[in-house]
C-alpha cells in the first residue's frame, strides 16, 4: 500500500482540481449569458466541458498514470465512438434532398 505522506500530497491535488472545476463551472455559465452567437458558444462550451471532464478523468479517476492496457481499451472505445459520431453526421449531411438547418434557425420557437 502507498505511504501516507504520498496520499496526503494526492489529497492536496484533489482539492486543487476541485477549485479548478468550480471555477470552470462558473465560467461555463457566465459565457452562456454572453451573446456570442450559437456557433462560437458551442465551441466554447465544448472546450470548457472537455477540460472539466479531462480533469476528473485524469486526477479523480487517476487516468494520468494508469496502466497501458487501460489506455489501449480506451483508445479502441474512442475510435468506435468517433466512427459513430462522424460517419453518422456525414451520412445524414450527404443525404440527397435533406437540408441541414443552418445555425441561426435553432434559436427560440413558440
Amino acid at each position, binding site marked *: 500500500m502507498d505511504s501516507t505522506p504520498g496520499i496526503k500530497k494526492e489529497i492536496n491535488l484533489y482539492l486543487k482540481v476541485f477549485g479548478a472545476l468550480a471555477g470552470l463551472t462558473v465560467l461555463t455559465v457566465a459565457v452562456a449569458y454572453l451573446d456570442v452567437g450559437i456557433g462560437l458558444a458551442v465551441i466554447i462550451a465544448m472546450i470548457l466541458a472537455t477540460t472539466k471532464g479531462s480533469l476528473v478523468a485524469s486526477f479523480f479517476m487517476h487516468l494520468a498514470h494508469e496502466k497501458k*492496457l487501460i489506455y489501449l481499451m480506451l483508445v479502441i472505445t474512442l*475510435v*468506435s465512438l468517433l*466512427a459513430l459520431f462522424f*460517419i*453518422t453526421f456525414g*451520412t445524414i449531411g*450527404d443525404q440527397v*434532398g435533406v437540408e441541414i438547418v443552418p445555425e441561426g434557425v435553432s434559436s427560440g420557437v413558440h
Partner: protein
Amino acid sequence: MTDHHHEEPFWRKYIFSVDHKVIGIQYAVTAMIFLLFGFCLMLIMRWNLAYPGEVIPIVGKLLSEDGMLTPDGYNSFGAMHGTIMVFLGVVPLAVGGFGNYVLPLQVGAPDMAFPKINMASYWTFFLGGVCMLASFFMPQGTASSGWTMYAPLSVIATTGETMWLVGMVFLITSSLLGSVNFIVTVIQLRANGLTWMRLPFFVWTQFVTAFLLLLAFPPLEAAAVFQIMDRVAGTSFFLPSGLYVGGEVLNVAGGGTPLLWQHLFWFLAHPEVYVLILPAMGIVAEVIANNTRKPLWGYRSMVYSIIFLGFMSFVVWAHHMFLTGMGTTMAAFFQTTTMIISIPSVIILSALFISLWGGSIRFTTPMLFALGFLPMFGIGGLTGLPLGLASADIHLHDTYYVIGHFHYVVAPGTIFALFAGIYYWFPKVTGKRMNEALGKTHFYGSFICINGVFMPMFIQGLAGVSRRLYDGGSTYLHAQPVLQWNEFMTIAALGLFFFQIFFIINLIISLAKGEKVSSNVWDATTLEWAAAPSPPLPHVNFEKVPDVYHGPYEYSTNSGGNGQPDFTPQHKKINS
C-alpha cells in the same frame, strides 16, 4: 491441494450455478430450443409461400379459425423468426454456450473472472427470452416490423413491439455482462506461458467478438429507449412532421427522423453479423487443425485478420442503407470500406482451405460439418460483394437475393459450424461420444436440403422478387417465371427438418448410452482436452493448474510411430 467438497444443493448446482460449465450448458440448451422454435415458425411461413391461402397442416387450428396463416401473422412470424434466430439462438449458442464452456478451459482458468456476473448474464438473457415469447400472447400479437424494426412502422405497430423493445434491453444487458467477463478472463486468467500467440484461434475469435458486443450494442440500447418513449410517452424521436397514417396526419409533435433508428440499429447490426460468424470460424479452425493433424496454415495472419476485421466492422454499417437517399460521397465511402472488410474474411477462409492441403484428414462428423462450412461461407461472402456496391444494390436490395446471401453465411455457414462444435465438444461435456452413423446421415441430409432451400433464393432475387411478401410473389407479374421455386424450397425445408430429427435422436441416445471415451478422444493439443478430465472437475476444471510451453496446434510433431502420440499438448514440458 486441499479441496474440501461440500455438497451443493440442487438449485445451486444446476439452476443458479456460478460454474461456467453449467452456465454454458444452460445457454446452449436454451439457445437450441429457441433455434428449433424459430425454425418451426419459418416452416409455417414457407408452407404459406408455397401454397398461399391453403390450410396449414397440423398447427393450422392454433393460428386462426380457418387454419390459415393470416398476413398479419406472417409479418409477426417473420419478425420473430429473425429476432429469435439471431439474438436468442445463434449468438447465445456460439458465445454464451461455446464461449462460456470452452474459453476458460482453453486458457487454463478455473472459471470466468466474475462467476456471479456470468450467472446474472444467463438469467438476464433468460428474462429477455421470456419477454419475447410472452409477446406471442399479447392481444395483438408479437412485434411485426421485421427483425430490423424500422421506424416509423414499428412505432405505430401493435403492442407486441413494446415487449420486443423491453426484451431487447434485457438481451443487451446480458451480452454486456458476458462480454466484460470474456475479455477480462482472456486478459487476466491465461495460464502461465500462454502468450497471446499461443492462444487457440477459438479464444481469439471470442475475444474480438466480446469487444464487438461491448461497443456496438449500447447504441441500440439508446435507440430502444427512444423507441419505447415514442410508443409509450408519445415523443417523436423517429417520427417526422406531417406523417400520414391511414389517411390522417398522425397527432404527434413530429420533427424526428426515421433514419436515426436505422443508423443506430445498423451500427449494432453490422458488427452483429460478425458476432454471428467469428465464433463459427473459431470452431471450424479448431476442428480442422485437429482432424487434419496439422498446424493451422497462417495462424498469425488469421489473428491479425480478425483484429482488423473487428475494427473495420464499425465503419461499414450504412451499406445496409444505400437506398435511403444517401449521396454519392458517403456511398463511395461505404463501398470502399465494405470491399476492404471482405479482405480479412478472404484471408481467413483461404488459410483454412490451405490448412487442408497435405493433411491426413479424419472424416469424423465434426470434420464433415467444418468442411461443409468452408464452401458455404464462401458462397455467402462472395454474394455479399455485389450487395456492397451501391449500383448493384439498387437492384438487389430487399429482394430474396439478400435473404439468400445472409442465410448462406449464417445457416449452412454458422449453424454448420455450431453443429461441428457440438459433435466435437460433446465428449468433453459428457465423457461420451455421439453416434457417427446418425451424425453422418444428419450431415449429408442437411447439406443437400439446406442448399435446396437457399440456392433458389438467388434466382428469385435476381428476378426481382421482394422479400417479406405474404404470398411469395404470386400476385406479381415479374415473379411468375420463378414462382415454381417456392414449392421446391418448401419441400427442401421440410427435408431439412426431417434430418434434424436424426440430430435430436442422436443427442438423446448418446446422452443416455453413448460410447464412453477417454479424456482426450480426438488426440487434441489444446488445454481443454489435454490437461483436463472429461467432463472437467466442477468449479476448478483442472486437477493442477497447467503451465503452457507450446503453440496451440503442434500436430505431426513426430511420425507417430512406436505408439508415440503424433502431437504435443500445449502444457507438455520440453525436457532439455
